[in-house]
């Protein structure tokens, strides 16, 4: 079943066309990677899907609903969460508060001036569960901004899944990590996205070919190929886009 469907999506910034007619279908439960050279428009595509940018043309359907004119919070409430390329945790809050903040809306808690967080037993239990999953329970009282980089990215994953979304979009989740940190992060991504749909932008081809069921290749704002990993590896157009590199050999 198609959960997310893009039809002829375009995005211009002034005269410059960044996304040039992207059509893409993401199936429910699929692990889908979007790859492409720098400046191909991968993050812009994420911003369009999550509602941060409005589209110039085309349509985006999420679970049969058109979402291209919706606000980010409305899209999230439909069941789509994302992380950002630059780590976007709430640095001034501690780790526990970060997760609680992510859980509030999805757990049905409305805005309130007088309900004290400390007394929301169910919310706090859920937050501890998420922290357990991402392995940061022992650091729950740490200010998030002071965590090690890999832990910050783990917390960001925690924030994304805490919102209860069934489709998770991760923008370069292992960028800047050492090899062993990246391996741990991939394990974590597998664990927390089990049973969910994952859309991932990533430069590390080992990880892409390891995790993804299907890969879309974006070059100059156009999808030049969308297929299973083994077919992508053999696709001459893709190899040409990567300047002759044999994709996935690194």
């Amino acid at each position: 079943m198609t959960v997310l469907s893009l039809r002829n999506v375009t995005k211009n910034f002034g005269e410059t066309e960044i996304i040039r007619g992207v059509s893409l279908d993401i199936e429910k439960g699929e692990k889908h990677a979007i790859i492409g050279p720098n400046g191909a428009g991968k993050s812009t595509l994420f911003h369009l899907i999550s509602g941060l940018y409005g589209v110039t043309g085309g349509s985006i359907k999420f679970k049969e609903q058109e979402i291209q004119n919706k606000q980010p919070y409305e899209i999230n409430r439909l069941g789509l969460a994302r992380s950002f390329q630059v780590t976007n945790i709430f640095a001034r809050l501690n780790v526990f508060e970060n997760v609680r903040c992510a859980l509030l809306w999805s757990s049905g808690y409305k805005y309130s001036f007088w309900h004290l967080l400390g007394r929301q037993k169910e919310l706090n239990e859920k937050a501890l569960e998420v922290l357990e999953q991402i392995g940061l329970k022992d650091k729950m009282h740490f200010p998030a901004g002071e965590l090690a980089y890999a832990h910050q990215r783990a917390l960001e994953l925690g924030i994304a899944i805490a919102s209860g979304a069934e489709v998770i979009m991760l923008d370069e989740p292992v960028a800047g990590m050492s090899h062993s940190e990246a391996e741990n992060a991939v394990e974590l991504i597998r664990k927390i996205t089990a049973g969910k749909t994952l859309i991932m932008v990533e430069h590390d081809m080992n990880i892409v070919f390891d995790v993804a069921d299907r890969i879309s290749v974006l070059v100059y704002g156009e999808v030049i190929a969308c297929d299973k990993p083994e077919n992508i590896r053999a696709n001459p157009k893709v190899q040409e886009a990567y300047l002759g590199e044999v994709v996935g050999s690194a």
Partner: protein
Amino acid sequence: MLEVFIFATLNGLVTGLLLFMLASGLTLIFSMMGVLNFAHASFYMLGAYFAYSISLYFGFWSGLIFAPIIVGVLGALVERYGLRRVHQQGHVAELVFTFGLAFLIEEAVQFFWGADTKNYQSPDLLDFPLFTLFGQEFPAYRGFMIGISVAIFIGLYYVLTKSRIGIIIQAAITHPHTVSNLGHNVPLIFMGVFGVGSALAGVAGVIAGPVLTTFPGMAVVLGSIVFVIVVIGGLGSLAGAFIASILIGLLQSYAIASNLGMPDLLNLLGLEFGRDHPLTDLWTLTLPQIAPILPFLLLVLVLIFRPTGLMGKREQ
């Protein structure tokens, strides 16, 4: 000497807390939306005028309750139907918008209430000396001003650090996009913060009106100092704004209460200049005379030696 010090400290606290009531809203709005709201002090003025009009018919206490609510709603409407639309045009457009709004409010106040000073009085209930020290009386109304400011800030602190909405506001201050992607209606939260920030300025106007006089220039007088506070404290820092407010309140109060001046300094250095000296105006300056410009001097010093402000952080 001791009584001068004690009373100057109390008066400094009154001014400082009042300034913080304005600065806290301004700095919250700035950190969340990146908008330096030039019209913020205008909401303070509106608070005083609305309270004055309400007090004519229903008494001071009704004004204290309803004027801030009216100002808060006005602030929220300004954000919803003005600033939110202008925001898409960038920061320069926002600055021009709030600047224009400040002028507009000042003109509107003169149009509806006139250019003269209004006889806005503190309530009879508080018209007695709270205590007498060294033969000098401290008015109960000033004690009330301290009390209400402190109560509001304890409330604000609690809401921001302990409540459900507080944690979302804190998160949205630095990462509005992430918060939006967690299902939170960030535009609504922005509107709420703008409304509450304006209402706080309104409260400051209601309680300051009877003491600092209610006239159409009151926004300009306090507005510039509030901006100084927000910059000295560090843009976006509530704690910094608190320290800077109290610091400037005390600094001005001590300067006004002291009788020191350049002649004392010259005496100390053993120097003397005749009355016909060309710089005689400079040599006879006293601290009370320069008290109004002290916040700006402090601003210059902070900008030279600590450009991020006392508690400001350079965001990455």
